[in-house]
């Protein structure tokens, strides 16, 4: 028995010595991407991944993701477009806490003009502690109309980077739930970093009806109306010239010239030219 005690003591002291060597801290990625890395100027230029009617995706947001400029700063992001068959959808979004780090998620829903309709901040997410089959995570569930908001973007606000969140140790969760003895444990702390692992579930609750060409109201094509040219009004000088010329031509016996002048006057819409000719002829 003594031997056992001595050897255990040796093991304990050895472990203490080994433990004194501090772990090299894992480098944390907490500075927002620079402006040079920003991919696009507006939402409409974002690369949107096309979703199906029913999706269960698990993906990473990391340094190979595109960078966008958001109100809070630059951020790596992933953008999605709902299926064209989806009407009402239910979306479940989780950001997993792994190895002391977590992606603090923020979601923006965009309409078909790429305007932001709704923003879901971290306050809209619940913290779900781990159980036998799941990791500790932020999770939110929302319903939206894919026709009205066909696009959404997941990113992290740059002002959250480097901040931390403390989650109850599973022993504490059990103690609180069942009134067990509260353990003396240190709660795990997770730092908000540039990227993380996201799980996305999309379920189409209602399909979008396909709209055939809309029954537009019958449009009467405008008829081609040949409008009469507005009547030409000659100068008074011109009128008097023609009257005089007709009279002179008749007086000199040049009837063809008088008739020609009469035609010209009629073409110019000079009223009274006919009467002047007749009068001149009768006066001869």
């Amino acid at each position, binding site marked *: *028995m003594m031997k*056992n*005690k001595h050897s*255990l*003591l040796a*093991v*304990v002291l050895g*472990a*203490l010595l080994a*433990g*004194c060597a501090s*772990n090299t801290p894992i480098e944390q990625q907490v500075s927002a991407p620079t402006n040079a890395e920003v991919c696009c100027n507006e939402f409409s230029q974002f690369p949107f991944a096309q979703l199906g009617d029913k999706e269960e995706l698990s993906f990473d947001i990391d340094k190979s993701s595109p960078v966008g400029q958001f109100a809070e700063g630059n951020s790596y992001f992933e953008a999605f477009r709902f299926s064209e068959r989806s009407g*009402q959808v239910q979306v479940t979004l989780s950001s997993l806490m*792994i*190895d*002391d780090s977590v992606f603090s998620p923020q979601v923006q829903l965009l309409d078909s003009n790429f305007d932001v*309709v*709704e923003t*879901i901040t971290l*306050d*809209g*997410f*619940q913290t779900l502690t*781990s*159980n*036998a*089959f799941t*990791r*500790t995570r932020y999770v*939110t*569930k*929302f*319903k*939206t*109309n894919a*026709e*009205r*908001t066909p696009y959404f973007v997941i990113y992290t606000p740059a002002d959250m980077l480097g901040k931390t969140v403390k989650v109850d*140790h*599973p*022993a504490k*969760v*059990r103690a609180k*739930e*069942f*009134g*067990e*003895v*509260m353990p*003396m*444990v*240190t709660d*795990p702390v997770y730092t908000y970093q540039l990227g993380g692992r996201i799980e996305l579930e999309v379920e189409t609750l209602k399909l979008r009806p396909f709209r055939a060409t*809309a029954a*537009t*109201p019958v*449009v*009467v*094509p*405008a008829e081609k109306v040949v409008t009469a040219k507005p009547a030409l009004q000659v100068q008074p000088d011109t009128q008097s010239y023609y009257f005089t010329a007709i009279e002179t031509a008749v007086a000199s016996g040049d009837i063809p010239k008088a008739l020609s002048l009469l035609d010209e006057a009629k073409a110019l819409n000079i009223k009274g030219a006919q009467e002047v000719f007749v009068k001149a002829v009768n006066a001869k």
Partner: protein
Amino acid sequence: MKKVSVIAAAVASALFAGSVAAETDVALDVTSGDSAMEVEVANPTEVISDGWEVHGYMSANFRMKDGETIDSEFGKPDYHSAGTSGQSTNQVEFTIKKHTEHNNGVWSDFVVRSEFGNGNSFAYSSEGSQKANDKAQFEIKEAYVELGGISFLGDDTSIWSGHRYFNRSAGLLSGEFWNQSSGLGAGFQTKLGGNTAGFAVIAADTNDDINGGVNSDRETNVAYNAYYHGVQGLGGSFNFDVKYITRANKTDPAADNGVGAAITYNRDYYGFDGWSQTGIAYGYGAAANRGVNFGAWSGDNGFSDDSNSIFLTSYGVANLSDSWQLGTEVTAFITNEMFGQDDLTRILVAARPSYKINDNLRFELTGSVSKETIADGAAWGRQDDNMYYMLEAALPVTVNADYFGRPQIKPYVTYYNTEEESAGGIGLGGTDGKEVIVGIHTEIWF
């Protein structure tokens, strides 16, 4: 090319767009936040969240004394010591919880807590079945349903029924439950003045009943609990519990009934960073076992109508720095009559400083001093006045495994010390009262 009137085209497109705008608004249900936006589909019983959660726990204490495995807890349940002296060698617990939420705010919980091996202190091996006796088998410890948010009851009201370990509190270092109502029962809980209020009726049969067969007269204990929790004040919050306990078919000298009450005060660590819980409880008759500690043992033949007790406890954890934590407990149990002993007093003072060496290693030192005063020590194999000392050093090794919970292997060495004549008080009867126990305690939570 046919010229279409620009005006006509504009009118047509406006009509088209207008039909889209007239559709119902976006329905955004954020189930977690406080705000609930208008829901497009008015189906109140539609399930909006549903799921199973599986949690678990395991405990195995590998320890030896003089070359043999041991059953003794070295007086820990009697507040004589505060070391790592749990009996279980293969205790495994699985808890399954189903939580469902509906559109109209109704929610339901189904909780099953199953456990195997709580209190088995043998080292089992690989042949056939483990043992022939019927102790600590696979058991269903808790199985109950809770429903809440029902409109005609009120959004803050919930009702429950089944087997439940209800409203429990235990000492940090002694590990002893001093406040609980554990048994088969039903209750309802609501909010009164912003604080939690409730009433529950819980029944517990004695061990003799359970082993005696279904048709004998049962000495069933019943507790009628009224409670009011969460009253803010003095920098913390107060819980009030009152229990009326009765016993059917009681055999003398057990008490017929009794009343117990307790006030619990939760706050930070007495003004410093951390947490603490302080309780004071009083009970008489069937409630003389710490006032509000109800279960199969209540109204035991050890407590008569004349028994009464006062129980005081205060424990908590101080976060001294990022690496240092300090857990402390002070507990006193004073009763005029218990199991044939008059005037029993037990006082325990224990402390556990804990130092985090790195993310995977901690160093914990635990010390406890306990005093027990009884009228007739000899009847219990000890003196009338007893002092018990304990010192333990432990090195918990943990892995920050996010996924499959947090496992912990803790080698420890414990030194118990008392006078030879008091040795019976900490399970060392017949020895000189001094003993060193070496062991490894393994746990995992998920």
